[in-house]
């Protein structure tokens, strides 16, 4: 455990916890766009900055998502320095993505409702990298990735055609904080959209029991073949999550019934 001072309050923190973790546990609201508990800290959006100092740390603005606590650390999350830089960061993000509802809502929560820094080329992507990191680090594929440097940095799938690598798991659409990636299931087909362009179109498998489409064939094959797969039985059954639950409930009740027959007490 480490002893730190957070907004003037003395707190005991886990050695391995980041300042952002601790702040969130304390109920503090710190903006963060490129952070997700399932992924390693990336430090790209810079919104989670705090003002910190300590025995071996000169007073400075640091991102809290990758800042480990240490004894004697003092952190301010709403100092004037934090607020003024944070305002500019939100304005820059809004300049890049003026139409993203989730981003506008987040900015509003922190007092930023307009921007002085409009660009001539805007889109909903904040370049947070969550989609890229989710696909690469957790799914183990690189169906969606960054291309280009600096201004020209953008998220892309395969260029000029539908992705052959994508398995349609939907992790990217699920994790995208600005709404730039969308997932649509229509009948037997799942489409994934990046900036309203289809980047992936895959066939959905229907549940053997209720017949409803529930996962792409590619995803089922990928999970079945994956060395970490613990759900082989589920895949073999080809049941949607609801029917899977019913199936196992049935199995469990069979076990309980047979047990109660042999043990009437």
């Amino acid at each position, binding site marked *: 455990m480490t002893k730190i001072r957070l907004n003037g309050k003395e707190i005991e923190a886990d050695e391995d916890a980041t300042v952002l973790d601790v702040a969130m546990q304390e109920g503090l609201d710190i903006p963060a766009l490129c952070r997700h508990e399932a992924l390693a800290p990336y430090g790209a959006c*810079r919104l989670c900055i705090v003002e910190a100092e300590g025995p071996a740390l000169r007073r400075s603005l640091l991102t809290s998502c990758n800042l480990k606590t240490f004894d004697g650390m003092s952190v301010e999350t709403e100092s004037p320095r934090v607020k003024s*830089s944070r305002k*500019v960061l939100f304005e*820059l993000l809004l*300049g890049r993505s003026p139409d993203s509802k989730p981003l506008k809502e987040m900015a509003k929560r922190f007092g930023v409702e307009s921007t002085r*820094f409009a660009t001539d080329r805007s889109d909903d992507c904040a370049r947070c990298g969550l989609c890229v990191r989710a696909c690469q680090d957790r799914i183990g594929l690189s169906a969606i990735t960054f291309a280009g440097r600096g201004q020209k940095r953008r998220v892309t799938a395969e260029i000029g055609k539908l992705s052959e690598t994508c398995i349609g798991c939907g992790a990217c659409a699920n994790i995208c904080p600005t709404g730039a990636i969308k997932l649509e299931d229509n009948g037997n087909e799942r489409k994934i959209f990046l900036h309203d362009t289809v980047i992936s179109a895959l066939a959905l498998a229907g549940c053997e029991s209720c017949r409803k489409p529930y996962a792409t064939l590619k995803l089922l094959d990928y999970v079945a073949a994956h060395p970490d797969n613990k759900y082989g039985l589920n895949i073999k059954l080809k049941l949607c999550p609801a029917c899977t639950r019913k199936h196992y409930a049935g199995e469990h009740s069979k076990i309980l019934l047979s047990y109660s027959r042999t043990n009437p007490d």
Partner: protein
Amino acid sequence: MKSVLKGIFHKKQDNETDSNGARKKSDNRGVTISVCAGTGGVAAGGYDVLNAFAAQLEEKGVAAKVGERCRVHKVGCRGFCAKDVLVDVCIDGDTTTYQFIDPGKAGRIVEEHIIGGAPVREWIAGPDYANFHSKQKKILLSDCGHIDPEDIDAYIAAGGYGAAEKALSSMKPEDVIIKIKESGLRGRGGAGFPTGLKWELCRAAGENPKYIICNADEGDPGAFMDRAIIEGNPHSIIEGMIIGAYAIGANEGYIYVRAEYPLAVERLRKAIAQARGNARLGENIMGHGMNFDINVKLGAGAFVCGEETALIASLEDRTGEPSHRPPFPVQKGLRGKPTTINNVETWATIPKIISNGPEWFAAIGTEKSKGTKIFSLVGNINNTGLVEVPMGITLREIIYDIGGGIPNNKNFKAVQTGGPSGGCIPLSHIDTPVDYENLTALGSIMGSGGMVVMDEDACMVDVAKFFVSFCMDESCGKCTPCREGTKMIVKLLDEITGGEGTGEHIAKLEELCGALKETSLCGLGKTAPNPVISTIRYFRHEYDAHISSKKCPAGVCKALITFRIDMSKCNGCTACAANCPQNSIIGEKKKPHEIIQEECIKCGICFESCKFGAVTKGQA
């Protein structure tokens, strides 16, 4: 075995270094002709001059008379690139330096000087050459210009690999680190972190294996200090890395060199191959049981890969993007292992410190900035080239004494230090002694050593825009402030120089610059605002002129200048009209001409063409 013995038992020859680390005059009898063959020298025709001298010596029978004590060899950069091709003719220990030599001049020099004993006066480098060198102190560049960089024997004969021998045979790794700490050497890549401390931290890090890396990415526009060392004395870097690897406990080293330096890459590869063939790299170095080898890795056109974590990513074949620190490379670097990264200059200084002792090094420079620094002195300056000076020398001395002042009778306006991450320093601070702390206090940085001098014709807003544009182009794009912020800063500066600045522009610039400095992920973003911040600090009146009066005082920003023809001076020679690319100057022959303002693109060709001073460049 023979090559190993050569290193251990090699008798020190005449060409040794004196206690200042500088080369002693050769007291070898005979004739030595040294021809500059750095990239600048080669571009000026160095190889052709070399061949011409060799041919002339042969043809005129000099070689036959003097035999093996007559030689022509190529040497590295001596610094005064503006005088290329530079040739040193050394006869029995007396050296004459010739400037602007082309192949056609070799014959006369051989006949009149070498055979006849009378130097060719009109080709000898003039007093400005002596002035250029008088306040310099060559340590890193001491062998450049004296030894053939592609000949390991020349390096050894000059005392090379003696420091590595000393370290490996008579010092403990910990002792080496103590010596480097005592010397006060600070990293020459720009950040100025104490080198000895970095090595100590790396050695103390628990994991193995450890790695050392030489950062030869030198991306600052106008900087070529590292290039000169690699092209002129690559073995000094190898020797420094051997000593460093020994001190830290590493067996593998990398030199990450930018691909845009083909000659440097070639010389480096040759040097490494020679070192391997002479028991200076590989297994059992110089018979002392140490194994260490170096691999060269080329960059691929990204300035950001000079940043240490981005460099490591590039070395690991990942996208060259920085990552957050801590952990620092000395804790978790290449492949997650403790890694020491140092700049070319830093590595090249190590052998000198070990040979001459840390007290010798610490006696040079200021209290907190020891030793010498190489600067590339460029821009509006008479003596352009590379200079090596002790820390603590003033900017005035560098610019006026060594640099020879500003050409064409123009006035000094500002000097930009530290590359695109640096700031512009005005005349009022020109007596500042150059060291890390002083430059930072002025709003600039030491950086890698770029020094761009500007005269009164430079527009400081335009200069700021140039440097931030470079950072914008080179931004990796990972973090919000640098990716979006540099573009915004350039846009605002564009508006100011385009005559569209408003009362809010400076405030917006200052806020953006503050956010970039405070929140960027790496040094590129953090220092990109420096040129803007420093020019607003020292040249606010120029910004105000652009914004409030829509004037560019230096007459640079096209939107804010107007070319006009003074009717009273124009005699209708039609030179301007004939050259105008827009065909927008009207008038009859021998009658005053007029520029059609709506069509004028402000190229300035009419201004250059008029020999009567009738075309004026004025405010809008």
